């Protein structure tokens, strides 16, 4: 079974890399590894577990990192969803947000995580 390295870059906190099996979610692996991530519904509906994809590394070749600079990265190159990511709107999906409770890895990647990523999802509309 394939395993991938997912580097969790906690906003305002430490950066840790965990190994994630191709058929487990990043959230499951984080709990197994004792590296906590925020979560709520675990069904892709609430957005509490959201991360933002920062970089993808070509998993097959073991090199040739595809960088995020400038061009938006496609979450589908890094993760396959177990079910539909309902908490994300099209704009979030295009911006590289990923729901870690239902995302299984398809490449080595680097993801910004932590509660502050969730607060980026929606602004105060009156301010």
């Amino acid at each position: 079974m394939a395993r991938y390295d997912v580097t969790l870059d906690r906003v305002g906190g430490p950066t840790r890399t965990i190994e994630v099996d191709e058929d487990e979610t990043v959230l499951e692996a984080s709990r197994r590894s004792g590296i906590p991530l925020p979560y709520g519904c675990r069904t892709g509906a609430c957005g509490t577990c959201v991360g933002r994809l920062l970089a993808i590394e070509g998993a097959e070749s073991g090199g040739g990192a595809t960088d995020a600079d400038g061009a938006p990265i496609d979450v589908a190159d890094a993760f396959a969803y177990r079910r539909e990511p309902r908490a994300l709107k099209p704009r979030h999906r295009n911006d590289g947000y990923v729901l870690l409770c239902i995302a299984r890895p398809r490449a080595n990647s680097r993801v910004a995580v932590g509660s502050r990523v969730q607060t980026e999802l929606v602004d105060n509309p009156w301010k």
Partner: protein
Amino acid sequence: MSDASTTDDVEPDHDHEHHHDHEGPGYSTPQAAIEESEREKLAYVMSLYVGTDVDEPDFVAVVDLDPESDTYCDIVDRIEMPNRGDELHHFGWNACSSSCHVEGLERRHLIVPGQRSSRLHVIDTKDRRNPELVEVIEPEEVFEYDLSAPHTVHCVPDGKILISMLGDADGELPGGFLELNDDFEIEGRWEPPGEIEMNYDYWYQPRQNVMVSTEWAAPKTYYPGFDLDDVENGEYGQRIHFWDWENGTVEQTIDLGEEGLIPLEVRFLHTPESTHGFVGAALSSNIFHFWREESAAPRAADEASGDEPRASGEYRVEKAIDFESREHDDWDMPVPGLTTDILLSMDDRYLFGSNWLHGEVWMYDVSDPANPRRADTLSVGGTFGEVQEVQGRELAAGPQMLQLSLDGERLYFTTSLFSSWDDQFYPEEAERGSVMLKADVDPRNGTMTLDEDFLVDWGECPAGPARAHEIRWPDGDCTSDVWQ
């Protein structure tokens, strides 16, 4: 409250249909609750870490409210949930005064749902200061009924428990109602599925055979935060539903229109004969009064049924209180009050509420429910509040969930609304945690004063600052008791 001999002395003109002895938990009438209850000495308060980087489960805080006690204003116990990620929100009792006919039933177990997790917890409060978690219903069991996002818990007759559920198993619409039996097992769906789309709070008035329910949005819509685009796309509710309580079917739906956007908390008057009530429309910041208007002509259906002829009629709704948006130098657009909670005093005289963004707790005299009269306002916390700190503790958000003593003299409130919405409007709430504050109410003169000696601080919880939400007393309160 099992003293049968007192029942008939209380409220002699009260038409207690069955004219029976009072056997079960709670009080025989709202007036008995006021007269016979003791002062609240403990509060159970929903407390949460979900959505923060504090890697701890949510908990129920036991707060000491006894001014004679050495631990007054302290959190004296914390009942931790077995999992993280619940977002404890609203909760309720296994039995209340609506069960006053049921011998042997005790007001003893708290049903504590996780709003985000859809997990249901049962806490035994036999030892009031040290309650114990005794049952957990896992989310998967709830999803089997194609429901998620549990909200309001009321005990209903015969020891059963009814929970409003805001979404289907995927966090989409429609929501519905889940029923538990007196062993805290899922009995099934209460209503035939598909009666409503959106759901939120509900209240029932069994003597009138009516229930009223309100609308927030699909869980997937409100969970991540408040997005005005969703309002523009019609993803938020503005309707209320009147149900046939025995049949579990919707009899009447009223669209409140743009002035009734996001109708959240709903209350019938406590008097069991009354058909009057109030609903707070949070986003448009208006309070609507509703009542049943009887019409002279019986409906054809009633005549044809062969049953006893019932008075026919329908519910009407009228805007009764309107809170204006306010300009603030630091905000681009006028700020709505955001009326997120309302409650009625046990004697049905006063309606209290909170405008979370403005930072106001308000009190209206609703002796004439069609014409509420402003009694007093307390300006504390929030975006405009005059009092911005208590005992040197800066307030990070506005007043939100309210609870009133049964005698109507002490109003308590906490400051967290919902973790992701807090983060949008009051990001500091995550760093400082919530507080619980108290106002002394003078019901005779219709005034409120902030008690500056009272402060419970969730910012000082051992694992880090926590949020505090709904409040309940062990012996019944103004937002859980219903009379049959």
